[in-house]
Structure formats: C-alpha cells, structure tokens
C-alpha cells in the first residue's frame, strides 16, 4: 500500500532561546516491509539540516539554530510503500545481534511485578515463541488501561505494570520485558500508524528467525498500515525527538501532529 505520511513538531518557547540543537528520528527506515519513496523536510527558522544513520541503522536528522527564536517547526512528509507481510528480515536464530534484544535494558529491568506476571503467565503460555508472543500481548492489553498523563517518558516497564496504566510506550516496554524473560528477542519500534494523532510505539519479537510486529496497545498484528521510523532496545534508542537549547528561563511547549493516509484517499485536512 502507498501511504502518505506527515510528522509535524511545533515547539513554542515562553522566552527567546538560542543554540537550539535538535536530533530527530522520524524518517521511515527501509526494511523488507516498507520502502521510502518520497521525502521532504522543512524547518523553521530555516537552518541546514544534516542526516546520518545511528549505530542501529536508524535515520537521524539533526541541526542547530544559533540565533534567538521563540518557536521551532519541523515537518517531515513523504510517501512509503508498505507490504502486507507480517514479518521482516530473516535472521539466523543464533545470530549474535539477537542477544542485544534479550538482555535487559534501562526501561526493561524486571522487578517483582513483572517477575510475578511472568510466572503467572508461564502456567498458561503455549510452548512456541509465536504463541507466547500473542499470549503475552493479550495479557498486556487486558491488564493495562490506556490513560495518557499517568506515566511519563521516564516510566519503566516495572513501574507501568505496577500502575496498570500507561500509553503505547509503556505497553511496549511491558511486553518487551515479558518476552525477554522468556528468552525471546524483543525490540522497541517507533513510528506511525494509519490515521491521525501522535507518533506510536509497538514491539517486534523474533520468533524462529523472523521479526514479527505486534501492537500491544491495540492488540493488533503490525501490517501495511504501520510505518516504522526506528527500532532499538527500548524507548531510549528510538526517541523521535531529542534536543537542548540555551535559556534556563524558557519553558517549552510541544505540539505533535501526524497523519498517515493511503495515497488513493483524499489527504487529511491541514491542522
């Protein structure tokens, strides 16, 4: 399917800032399941935007605005061709790289809450990895309540499960931790899904060598209506936006608007 996407980030500063550095991971990466066919980037105030790939192969856009300014607008838009395949990249199950995704990472250190959930699930879990992936994802979906504002970007999987609340980032971290406890390589994926709203996060798990995408927030298999920006061990590797600016008095307000529509449908109205 051909998908037109747009990711827009608007920052407003209460007081003029200078030396604003930004690093964005909001460019769809090429995989077996998606190819980027068109891309355009706009930044205001105007500045040179550099691009590179990070250690995990995710695309980065970055730049610097020296002069004083009170707002910042970044828009990335383009077209991605997605396939209906439910998995990508066959990797040898013994590949060294898979161990990156079985070791606990900062957000996915299991504590008592996750360990007891894991033990409880073990009683009913199917024997095969794919079966367990579906089983754990359903548990996460049934246990957690989607409630923005209850967690923040620092919330770990353990904390989120204790609260039984959170957003897509938390759902993903909880599922990743369960999968890793079961010895199944699991990685965090950040990107967009069809429709409008904010950026999204889900999970990819390696079962018998294939990376399957599953969206625990919506209890859906990831299909051709998803666009992936990046993957990594957890949120930290996939932060869509990172940045810093000078002026300790300035308070930043951020607005994110995204849209993903099939090319043959009418584009969503500008926001």
């Amino acid at each position, binding site marked *: 399917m051909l998908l037109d996407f747009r990711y827009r980030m608007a920052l407003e500063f209460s007081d003029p800032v200078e030396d604003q550095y930004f690093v964005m991971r909001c460019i769809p990466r090429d995989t077996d399941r998606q190819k980027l066919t068109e891309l355009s980037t706009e930044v205001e105030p105007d500045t040179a935007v550099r691009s590179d790939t*990070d*250690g*995990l192969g995710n695309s980065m856009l970055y730049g610097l605005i020296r002069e004083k300014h009170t707002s910042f607008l970044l828009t990335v838009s383009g077209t991605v061709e997605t396939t209906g395949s439910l998995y990508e990249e066959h990797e040898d199950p013994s590949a060294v790289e898979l*161990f990156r995704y079985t*070791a606990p990472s900062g957000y996915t250190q299991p504590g008592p809450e996750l360990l007891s959930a894991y033990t409880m699930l073990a009683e009913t879990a199917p024997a095969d990895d794919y079966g367990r992936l579906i089983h754990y994802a359903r548990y996460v979906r049934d246990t957690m309540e989607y409630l923005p504002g209850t967690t923040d970007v620092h919330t770990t999987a353990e904390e989120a499960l204790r609260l039984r609340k959170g957003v897509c980032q938390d759902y993903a971290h909880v599922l990743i931790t369960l999968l890793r406890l079961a010895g199944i390589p699991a990685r965090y994926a950040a990107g967009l899904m069809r429709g409008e709203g904010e950026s999204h996060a889900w999970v990819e798990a390696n079962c018998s060598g294939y990376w399957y995408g599953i969206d625990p927030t919506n209890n859906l298999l990831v299909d051709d209506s998803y666009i992936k920006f990046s993957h990594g061990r957890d949120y930290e590797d996939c932060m869509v936006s990172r940045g810093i600016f000078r002026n300790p008095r300035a308070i930043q307000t951020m607005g994110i608007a995204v849209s993903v529509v099939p090319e043959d449908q009418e584009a969503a109205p500008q926001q």
Partner: protein
Amino acid sequence: MQELNKHVKSINHLLERYGVRFGIYKDGVFKEQLFPFDPIPRVIGKEEWDEIEAGLIQRVTALNLFLSDIYGEKKIVKDGVIPPEFIFSSSGYLTACEGLKTPKGIASHISGIDLVQGKDGKWYILEDNLRIPSGASYPLIARDLCRTASPGTFAGTHVADNRDYPKMLRDTMDYVSTGGLNVILTPGRYNAAFFEHSYFAEKTGAVLVYNTDLTVEDDKVYLKTAAGNQRVGAIYRRTSDEYLDPLAFNPESLIGVPGLFQAMRKGNVAILNAPGNGVADDKGIYYFVPKMVEYYLGEECKTNNAPTYLPYYEEDKKYVLDHFDDLVIKDVAEAGGYGVVFGNTLTKEKKADFIELIKTEPRRFIAQEVIDFVDLDILDEDGVTLIPRKADLRAYVLTGEDVRVWKSGLTRFSRNPDSFIVNSSQGGGFKDTWVLQH
C-alpha cells in the same frame, strides 16, 4: 631513602598546600580529603619491571583490539570466545557506539592497570581501568616534592625519572588529534580529579575547559575564545560517557557538550578515552582478557589474572557455592572498591541471601581466590615505626603511536591493617613507585 623519612611531615604539608586532594562522594555529600603520602617508595628492579612492562603492553594492545572489534564486527563473539550475554548486558556497552571508528583505531589511550604482588612473588592483574583512570599526578608531584626536600636522594640512585608523563600524555593527544587544540575537559571543582586536570593542563600545554567553553557546529568541535572559535582536535575528558553529550546519551545532562558524540562519529575529534570503553573493563569481561590476548595476538598471555570464576558457567557456579568462604565476590556493576564482599565475613543469613542472588543473577557476579599479597612497610605517625600494610600498584599505559608503560605508577595502601581494599575512595594513602634502571 632514610633521608626521605625525615621529610615526611614537610612533604605532606607541601602536598596540602599545593591542594593535592582527592574528592569523594559519600552518602550524596561531596568531601575533599587529603591523600596521605608515605615516604617509603615501592622499589621495582629492572628485570622485574621489564617483565611487567611487556605484559602490560600486550594486555592493553589486546584490549584496544577488543574495543574496535566489539563496536564493529564482533568476531570474538561470533567465534565463540566470549558469550554475547557478557557484551550486551554489560552496563559499559553502549549501543550508540556501534560502528564507531576512533581516530587511529585507539579507544583506550590511557589505561590504568591495577596489579598486586602475591607472596609467591608473581604479579597479578586486579583490574583494568579504561575509562580515563586518574591518579598519575600523585606520584608525579610527590616525586617533585621529594626531590625538593631531599635533592641527594635521586642523584645517587638509578631510579627512572618519571617526569616524562606529561610529555607522554601530550604525544598521545597529538597522535590521535584530528587537527586543532588539545583540551582537558573537566566537570569542575567538585570532581574527584579536579586537581589532576589543572595539573595536566599546565604540564601538557592543553587548555583546561568546562563544557560551556566548547561548542559543536557542522560536526566539528570548537573552543570559544575572545578571538573567535578555535578548532579542537583532541579532548581529554573525565566526564563519564552517560553525561558526555545530551543528544546522544542522558538527555538531561547539563555537564555535556551537545553534538560532541556525532562530531566524533564523523571522525572530526578524538575523545580520550573513547566512549563505550566500559565494556572492556567490566569485571565480568576481565575473566576473558587472557583469551582476548590469545585470540587477537596469537600469543600466550603474559599477565596473570587472579584465579576467577564466573557463576554464569555451571561448573564455576558449583565451585563458587562450594568454596564460598574462601572467595571474594564482586558485583560487576560496581567500581572503586564498592560491591566487594569477602565470603567469610558474612553472617549466616546474609550468606544465604547472597547465594540466592548469585543463583538468580549469575551474570552479575564474579568470584576470585583471595590473593595473599605482599605487605609494604609504611611509616607510622611517630615517624620511626614501620608498619605493614596491603598495597597495590596502578600502572599507566599510554597508547599513541606506540604502547608505552610509564616507568612509575601509583602505589596505594589501605589504612586499615586488615583491609585488602586499597582504593583511594576507601580512605587509603599512596607511595611513590621507583623503577630501577639497572
């Protein structure tokens, strides 16, 4: 040497006046303490030193090859020499450093290798410190003061002059520099090694800078000066990896330089030591260093590790549980003498808890035989009585065009007569280390 003993008070007084201090955080409070100097040097004969030196050169060469390999192809893991879990679950392994190519392929420019001499006369490696180990300034400045207090002492001996350290450091920085100034980046006055930073800046001609003095533009690092921006080619830093660059590591760091890491990835600046080195001086990886030497260099390892067991391996776990009281257990995540437990000092309950912890998190611990290391005499406060104390030696190995071992080193001793822990953060003192030329 007798002569020096008479001057111990005046030397310690001078050290105090020069501000030779060691900062330490304890229970969240910053304290500065003097690092007491003992005038009786550790003396190492030429033949013995030559052997140590050859071993250290080999070891550090292998460690640098390991770092390039781990952030590149990972051949040593693919070939089954090191299990992948030990790499990816190491807190020192940084995903951001994947694919990183350091200038001249050097990641550990300054390596501090801690050794002890066993009662069997053999030297053992206690640990490798590859994240800008501090402390070289102490023997350097103490030697200077001794020379001032007692000029005759060094005239008639064959003690290798140790005043070449700043030159070695400068050569290393110049060799890896991508062109431009050498700077020493200090987190500031409330850092354990602040004294050392200012001392080395003065002695090497590098510019002592704070993070806010540096700026990154077009993937290049500049020093902001009244005369405009000046390009920086090499940065000696103390700031830990996590806080080095808020755009690449901890986003909340206020002591980092935004964009620095990307400038390094682009090959536009050398950072001494490179970020990500923690994967090689991890206590769990220590076990594999002799295997690295064999793997990368095809040579037998010349340095001795203390006999070490990894509970990760079933066989080793069984040994550790059977011989718990004879072993020292170390938590691989802790440094500076913290997280070190002697099996025989635990109460019955604590021991049971600890054994349970080893069983659930085997990768987290290593166990070592307690090496009965030689005591060195220190001079008691009365200035006459000699008392024996446990001591280690930190040797400094600098990697630039060649790998060179500084013919001196920091000998640290424990204040407590029963303690085997000699880290300066645990309240010990230090001695000069004399390496003989003949």
